[in-house]
């Protein structure tokens, strides 16, 4: 088992409850979606896993560790095992595409000779081959999104957390990106994708958590997709 949420809740200082009583488990190497309307708590759930936020209640376990016990000095090592795709891309605007994608491997201490081919391959995989020297500002929103995805994939993380990764992509590119995520899952990475793109989720037919106003209202598995209307 890779991840376990036990009665997890998150209430912000102003009293707004973003998540409440969420419990589920994810197996290592599983790929799943988290869906729901805007404000349902999808992003909050991923942020709790990335330790950007701490839960107000409940317990989160990742890879056998209680995340509430993770100390500040342990955070960098934990985050280097994650691949993060953000809605707002979070790219370094003064570094080119190659440097942005190489960053996780540089931070993890890989040799430059090993980094270069991996970065080129990741850029190729997201359709940005040949744009290595482009600055993020010179790329379209969709290309920036793909650059963020390449950065999340490049170091082959143990847990990939993607927040609306296909929000700015056309359906064909979105499907190609999903195929990349599937290939990553097949190499043992646990993949969690927050998305409100229902047609895409239905096409993928993977386990899906449904959130509504911070509550988990459904958790259906691939086999159940065949019994539901697409």
């Amino acid at each position: 088992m890779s991840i376990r949420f036990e009665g997890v809740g998150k209430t912000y200082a102003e009293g707004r409850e973003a998540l409440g009583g969420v419990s589920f488990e994810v197996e290592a190497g599983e790929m799943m979606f988290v869906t729901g309307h805007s404000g349902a708590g999808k992003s909050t759930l991923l942020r709790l896993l990335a330790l950007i936020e701490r839960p107000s209640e409940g317990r989160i376990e990742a890879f056998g560790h209680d995340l509430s016990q993770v100390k500040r000095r342990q955070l960098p090592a934990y985050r280097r095992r994650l691949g993060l795709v953000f809605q707002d891309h979070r790219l370094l605007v003064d570094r080119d595409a190659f440097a942005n994608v190489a960053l996780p491997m540089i931070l993890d201490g890989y040799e430059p000779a090993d980094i270069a081919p991996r970065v080129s391959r990741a850029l190729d995989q997201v359709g940005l081959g040949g744009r290595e020297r482009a600055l993020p500002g010179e790329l379209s929103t969709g290309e920036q999104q793909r650059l963020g995805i390449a950065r999340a994939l490049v170091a082959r993380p143990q847990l990939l957390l993607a927040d609306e990764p296909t929000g700015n992509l056309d359906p064909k590119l979105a499907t190609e990106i999903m195929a990349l995520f599937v290939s990553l899952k097949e190499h043992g990475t646990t993949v969690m994708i927050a998305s409100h793109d229902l047609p895409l989720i239905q096409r993928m037919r993977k386990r899906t958590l449904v959130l509504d106003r911070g509550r988990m209202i459904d958790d259906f598995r691939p086999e159940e997709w065949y019994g539901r209307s697409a």
Partner: protein
Amino acid sequence: MDAAPEPVAEEPLLPEPAPSPTSLRRNPRRAWLRSHAEGMRSGMARLLRDPWGQLLTLGVVAVALVLPALGFVALDRIDQAAVAWRPSGDLTIFLAAGEPVERALELAATLDARPEVAEATVRSPDDALAELRTLSDFAGALSALDANPMPALVIVRLTPDGAARIEEFRSELAQRAEIDWVQVDKRWLERLESLLDLARRVILLGAAVLAFAVLLVVGNTIRLEIALKRDEIMVLKLLGAGDGHVRRPFLYIGLWYGLIGAVLALALVYAGIAAVQPAVDRLTLSYGEAVEIGGLGLRGSLALLAYGAILGWLGALVASARHLREAVPR
């Protein structure tokens, strides 16, 4: 510039990922060194991107370093000059006018036998007059004199025990009829050394105050840099950059500020010396001997550069420790 490679400061939380099919190599120590090289390069690039914008900070650093440096150069010169003018004995005994040189020789022999005296030498009135002719501009006037007005002198060098009781010894000698006056030669030097010591302490205090100003100025500049790079810092932290990695470019910016400020200070020290040297020449030549102010020398120059670099680095360390902790990813 932090002391230890990142891996030492961090604790692994998750097991290492499964080996990849391409057998990628990881070398934390070399990655740490590369991160330093990159920090050094990016810190310099930041300064070069807007060199005129950095002038105020660099100017403050340079002024804060040049003032104590000039003070120490001046003290060093005065100290060296004082050594050159150091008298050969501890006491000079002036015999009464008209006392023959033989009395001086007798007195010297008596004193030489005493345990508190290391050496007693005689300078005859003729020798004293000859020396006066050499050291002053009165040679013409002196040759017009009918008789030699100089008294015979006995110059006494004391043993350490004798030097400890110099006042007692001086009073005893002053009571002798053949002696006109006993001068404690080193008193003026002791006073000068006390003054130099006081000046040294004042300069050190000033240097400490100015060093604090450098810390504040560099620290404030780094605080602004951190504010400008806030988004980048957040991204780096989200991707797993340790505190050391995030802090490093800012430490190098501080180090470059300090080092470049010190280079400017060094240039100002030498420009200042070049400007003052002609006036010093005019003054010292009127006393018969030219004094070369010189400069900080190689060791002093290197020390100034290291001092500047360390101050800049410390200012950046203090500011980054505080402000990077506040930059928490959202």
